[in-house]
Each structure stands twice: as structure tokens, then as C-alpha cells.
């Protein structure tokens, strides 16, 4: 394993339906948790990368005001976005800036305050993450985008709505243990199947909830990392790939090609394969998304993802525990903060600090974070 760039500290705010804070105050919550965990002062951070999806709040160019509020002045700051995978993209940029030698320490701050909008407005903003010229005029939404994948998967492999509901049943059980999660109630397969239809075949409980939240990842170069912490978590592999935004351009409909491509790059860079991953956080924005992730990441062959669920292999104690922090389905999905929250969970797992949800002896962890309906694929492999 190359030990060049490390994650030394992580933090996140509670993910809630309505935070009662400004975006800068919300960012402070995740940033302060991360900084306190490593006993760093803002002047010890060389640069900051602020990550979110635009248009959920009114602040244009959020990086400046957020860096100011976090005390990160005069260090450079800038904004990156890849909708729901914005903070994974931020981590990728931080990695390259440190690897280049330009900076030694970077704070990657992800946030989203979605409660400024009504549910239908949020649905419209998300729908405009699709191709606004040719496809949004038909009323395309995020659930609808993933639902087209669910339909194709059902048709190709005989996947049923009950299999998707099993994802929610699993993740809701772990969500109960996560004090930062917005949804902490156990849901059964029947609860999911009996919930209202949102976009066939996806029902209400097949979908994650909009939320307000922030996350922070402190990234450091090798020499500085060892001074900050005795337990750095190393970035072993970073894969990113991009698929067409328009649904009409998609070559693969039973999986997300961008995720599959990104996984291939990340595994190659890390020098490991799916069988080496001890614990994973995948982008379960919808229940079907987690099944697609099992297959796109190579945890299961195409069409066999549901078998992992039936055999409880993705539960704690299984072959490859997935989303044992409750996943997006339980935590909620404050778009720009999600990737950082996933990284936080894996960081704690690899340091043996995950308490109730600890995967014994976890050494290599994976984060799968997707932007839009499979537009931006990001796979990050971390190790100790």
C-alpha cells in the first residue's frame, strides 16, 4: 500500500430534517468535530475545499463565506460539485493537491441545507440534475431515474420489490444505532411494501430522505499525518468515472456503468479486489441502488446481488458488511455532505472506533458515492 496521503480526522453534524442553522453554522458542526478530534487549529489547515450541490440555498459562491466562518482565512478555498458525490470529488481534489506537494493539510467540507425548499421544489432541483434541455421537460425526477434501473433489473434478473425492501429492512436496523441519523425507526419488508408508490417500482420507503447536514474530512501528507495522529487512514485507491447525463445515452441499464468503471480504477490503484474489502459504504439513495452497487463493485455477479441480502452476507458478521451505519436510507441524504459521512464511517471502522457497528479486524474499507442517476461514479478505497 502506498502511504502518501492520509485521512487524519473526520466529523459530521447530525443529519436532520431541518437544522435551524445557516449553511455556515451547519458546516461548523462537522468541521469542529473533525478539528477537535485531532486537536488542530484553523491556521494549521493549508487550504479548504467546500463541496455541495448548488441551488438548495441562496448563497452564491459558498466557499468564501464558509471558509471565513470556519476561521480559514487567508488560506485558499474553492468550491467543487458533482451533485450527490460532491465531497468524494472534494476528497479526490485534496488527494491530488497534497500528492503534488502544493499543500500539506486540507479540510474537505461537504454540506447541504435542503430544508429551505419544499419537497416538490427539492424534487424539481434534483430533477434538474438530469438533462434539462431534453429530459427534465418530461418530468424526470431522481426516484424516476433510479426506478428505470429497478425496472430493467427486475426484468433481466427477476428481482422483486420485496428484495429491494430487504435493503431498507437491513439498513433501518443499523440506522437505529446511529445517533446522527435522521431516521432511526426499524422498518420491515412489509412496511416498505405497504408504503405509497412514488415512482413505480419504488415506494416511499425505498427512497432516502432529504436532510440538512455537513461533513468534514481532514487530509494530510505523509510527514504531517504522523505528527497529527498515531492512527492515520491511508487513501489506497481513488476511482472516478462519468456516464451520460441523458438517460438516452446509457449503454447499461441493469447497473451503473460509472460506478463499475470507477471501481475498476480504484481496485487497480489500490492493488486489491472486491474480495479484499472488509467493510463498505455504498450510495443507497434508493433501495435498488444498493443492489446495483453490490454488482457494480463486484461483491456479487450481475443479477446475484439479492442473494447477498438473502444470505445476510451484507449484514454485520457477513462476508462483506455494507452500510452498517444505516446508509443514506437511514441517515438521510444532505447531498454535498454524504460522501464525507461515508468516509467518516469507514475511517472509524478501520481505526476500530465504530463501537456497536464495528466490523472486527477491518483493515480495508470502500466508499461508493454516486452523483445524479449514475452520472458521476466515485469509489474510494481506504486502508490501515
Amino acid at each position, binding site marked *: 500500500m502506498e502511504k502518501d496521503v492520509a485521512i487524519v480526522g473526520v466529523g459530521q453534524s447530525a443529519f436532520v430534517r431541518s437544522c435551524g442553522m445557516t449553511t455556515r453554522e451547519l458546516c461548523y458542526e462537522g468541521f469542529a468535530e473533525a478539528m477537535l478530534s485531532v486537536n488542530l487549529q484553523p491556521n494549521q489547515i493549508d487550504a479548504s475545499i467546500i463541496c455541495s450541490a448548488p441551488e438548495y440555498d441562496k448563497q452564491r459562491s459558498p466557499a468564501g463565506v464558509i471558509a471565513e466562518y470556519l476561521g480559514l482565512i487567508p488560506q485558499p478555498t474553492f468550491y467543487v460539485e458533482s451533485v450527490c458525490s460532491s465531497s468524494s470529488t472534494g476528497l479526490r481534489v485534496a488527494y491530488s493537491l497534497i500528492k503534488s506537494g502544493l499543500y500539506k493539510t486540507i479540510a474537505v467540507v461537504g454540506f447541504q441545507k435542503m430544508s429551505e425548499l419544499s419537497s*416538490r421544489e427539492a*424534487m424539481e432541483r434534483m430533477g434538474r440534475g438530469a438533462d434539462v434541455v*431534453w429530459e427534465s421537460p*418530461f*418530468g424526470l425526477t431522481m426516484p*424516476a431515474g433510479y426506478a*428505470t434501473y*429497478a425496472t430493467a433489473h427486475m426484468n433481466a434478473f427477476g428481482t422483486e420489490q420485496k428484495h429491494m425492501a430487504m435493503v431498507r429492512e437491513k439498513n433501518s436496523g443499523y440506522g437505529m444505532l446511529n445517533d446522527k441519523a435522521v431516521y432511526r425507526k426499524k422498518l420491515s419488508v412489509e412496511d416498505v411494501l405497504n408504503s405509497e408508490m412514488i415512482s*413505480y417500482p419504488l415506494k416511499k420507503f425505498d427512497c432516502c430522505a432529504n436532510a440538512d447536514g455537513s461533513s468534514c474530512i481532514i487530509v494530510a501528507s505523509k510527514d504531517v499525518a504522523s505528527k497529527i495522529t498515531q492512527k492515520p487512514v491511508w487513501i489506497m485507491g481513488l476511482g472516478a468515472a462519468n456516464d451520460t447525463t441523458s438517460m438516452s445515452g446509457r449503454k447499461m441499464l441493469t447497473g451503473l456503468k460509472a460506478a463499475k468503471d470507477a471501481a475498476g480504477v480504484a481496485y487497480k490503484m489500490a492493488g486489491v479486489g472486491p474480495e479484499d474489502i472488509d467493510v463498505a459504504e455504498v450510495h443507497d439513495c434508493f433501495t435498488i441502488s444498493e443492489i446495483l452497487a453490490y454488482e457494480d463493485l463486484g461483491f456479487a455477479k450481475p443479477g446475484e446481488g439479492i442473494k447477498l441480502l438473502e444470505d445476510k452476507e451484507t449484514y454485520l458478521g457477513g462476508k462483506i458488511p455494507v452500510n452498517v451505519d444505516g446508509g443514506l436510507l437511514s441517515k438521510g441524504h444532505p447531498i454535498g455532505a454524504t460522501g464525507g459521512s461515508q468516509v467518516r464511517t469507514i475511517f472509524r471502522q478501520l481505526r476500530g472506533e465504530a463501537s456497536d457497528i464495528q466490523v472486527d479486524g477491518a483493515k480495508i474499507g470502500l466508499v461508493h458515492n454516486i452523483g445524479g442517476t449514475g452520472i458521476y461514479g466515485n469509489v474510494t478505497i481506504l486502508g490501515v
Partner: protein
Amino acid sequence: MGFERFGVVSFASETLASDFVTYLDEGKVMATKCRTCGEVYFPPRTQCTICFSANIEWFSVGQGKLVTYTTVMYGPLGFENDTPYTLALVEFSSGIPVKDELPCAAHSVSSPPGYKVFGRLDKAIAKDDIKIGLALKAATVKLADDRVSYEFRKV
């Protein structure tokens, strides 16, 4: 100009491919093809990304098959009164031969590959008839307020 008339709610007023709307007014659903290399485009575009040619022609979208779909029960802002509607992806085999006199190294196939078109299913199609593989054709639709669109109808 004119492109803002496309769809139930539009988010763009102009495109180099705005002839698409003119064709919809004439009852035709059209895609584009590069005359130089044969690449087929849907969504239509007039700038070829394979050979960088602007030598583009329009052709009519023919008959295709349903690849996947979803029925939206909860619509976004602007579509509240439109639900339920079924969004579909339909695959067409182009069947248009590439012009023999214009061979292109970038595109060695003799006929362009199939292409997919995203849109809505005709609401008249019964729920039980909606199956992957269903034969469909694209047809133009006139909406309120002088707006135009297209949908997929049973063949």
C-alpha cells in the same frame, strides 16, 4: 428561439437543434445523423463529437422497443397535476445506411448503431400492456399554451 415551447415545462429557450420543435409542429419526431461519419444522435445535435463535422442531417425516428420505464406518482414542481405519467426509454435500430461515398475511419460500421429515445408513454396504453419489449412508435403531441412534445404509442 422557439425551443422554449418544448415539453410540459422547459428550462432552455435556445439550441442549435431547435429545428426539432419545427419538426414537431409538422408532426415529425426527428433525430440527427452526421453526414460525414454516420454517427447518430438522440438527443439531436448539430455538432459531431466524433469527427467534429457540422454536416448534419435530420431523420425521422422510426419504430422501436420499450427498454425500461417508470410510472411517476409524485411529480416535481410544475408537474403536480400531470401524474401519473409513465417515463420510458425506447430503443430504435436506426437502419439508416451510412452514405457509401463518405467513409470515415472514426466509424467503421456499415450502418449506425441503435439509439435510445427518452420520453413519455401514451396514457392510453393500459397498465397491463406495459412490458419491456413492447413495440412502440414516436408520435408528436400538442400541449396547452401552444406547447409541443412527443410520446410513445403502441404500434
